[in-house]
């Protein structure tokens, strides 16, 4: 599933910022257009290193459609100095891009299976390319469900798109928020609680889980309780990625490097150290 970056992987390519969509007060989605040459193709789940010139690099999963060969789409939350610089870019600015790097969601391996996607918060961004790919080839999959959890109704990511997907009759969408007031008529509660509500064939289901690690732990428990085997559960892991090519060791996770062996990892392969706090 690994897709190597083209040319020198340490050399950023310049991309110009196109349209920007402000998702929430600190999350922005923007398109990146190559200043020269072609857009580097990517597989759903892979990430790029985005370089705010003179500030620093941050690893950000691609959140756009892998079939779109004209632009890259990224969704970024302002957290530290570099991500704030990237998230705060203006239209027309230039960012450096290295990538794509890492492993991808098993969209090909999931053909013929039910697919349950469990996403929390900004974790919806890295799985969105997989959703695009699956919906583009919808007939080859069994039941498809997206379960999404957000902090509050105002912090639901890609809200219009979720509403559009919901109007399709071939994907089950359930959204929940952790906190809401009485004018919210949707679900309230954590996203793992949605898993038992979905009808799927657990032995023939591929689960893709992305979000904060603690949310993924609870989701794994719910998936296992529902009967999904460990080798059918895939997670997108996050660590402090720097070089993105498995050299610097910053993102070491047990015997693996997240940038090279992840970010998408099959749960049975990491289960023995997933809960080890020191890792």
């Amino acid at each position, binding site marked *: 599933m690994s897709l190597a970056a083209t040319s020198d992987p340490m050399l950023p390519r310049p991309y110009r910022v196109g349209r920007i969509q402000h998702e929430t007060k600190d999350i922005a989605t923007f398109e990146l257009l190559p200043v020269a040459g072609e857009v580097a193709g990517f597989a759903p789940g892979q990430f790029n290193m985005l370089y705010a010139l003179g500030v620093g690099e941050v690893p950000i999963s691609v959140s756009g459609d892998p079939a779109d060969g004209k632009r890259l789409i990224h969704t970024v939350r302002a957290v530290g100095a570099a991500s704030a610089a990237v998230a705060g870019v203006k239209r027309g600015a230039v960012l450096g891009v290295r990538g794509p790097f890492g492993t991808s969601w098993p969209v090909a391996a999931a053909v013929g299976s039910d697919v349950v996607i469990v996403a929390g918060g900004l974790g919806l961004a890295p799985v969105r390319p997989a959703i695009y790919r699956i919906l583009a080839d919808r007939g080859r999959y069994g039941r498809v469900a997206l379960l999404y959890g957000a902090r509050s109704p105002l912090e639901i990511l890609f809200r219009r798109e979720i509403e559009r997907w919901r109007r399709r009759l071939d994907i089950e969408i359930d959204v929940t928020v952790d906190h809401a007031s009485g004018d919210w008529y*949707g679900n309230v509660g954590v996203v793992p609680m949605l898993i038992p509500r979905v009808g799927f064939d657990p032995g023939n289901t591929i689960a893709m889980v992305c979000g*904060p690690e603690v949310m993924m732990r609870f989701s794994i428990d719910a998936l296992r309780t529902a009967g999904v085997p460990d080798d059918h559960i895939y997670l997108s892991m996050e660590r402090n990625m720097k070089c993105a090519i498995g050299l610097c060791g910053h993102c070491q996770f047990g015997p693996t490097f997240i940038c090279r062996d992840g970010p998408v990892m099959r749960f049975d392969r990491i289960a023995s150290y997933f809960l080890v706090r020191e890792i």
Partner: protein
Amino acid sequence: MEGLDRILLEHPFFAGLEPQLGHIIAGCARNVRFEAGQYVLREGGAADEFFLIRHGAVALEIHSPGIAPIVFATSRQGEIIGASWLLPPYRWAFDARALELTRAIGINARCLRDKCEADHDLGYELMKRFLPVLLQRLQATRLQLLDVYGKQAT
């Protein structure tokens, strides 16, 4: 009564229950219906009935003076509402409000408590069904409290 027996046994909360126990519980049960916006139960009220949702959705809320009610969970088809009937003082600790037309089975708590006192096998069976739900909700509440989608997280 046969209809309620069947409906009870078809509800996920009672999946796999022995029919004779289902028959005993059905003796305390009735069909209920709540319109959208109608309260199923109110904080401080007597916890004398709990509910198995058959269709619809119910918001569980806590109110505080001066602010809108805070919804802390929603329950839907196949789930249950209410555990305060299990222990004294048998008072509800929150409000529950139907978000849409909701059909449920209401089970008279006093009736069921008396039957559990008389038949500990029935009580043990109920405990085995309630405890996982309560544990699941406790863990979910912990996760909610962590505010995992806050700025320090993904």
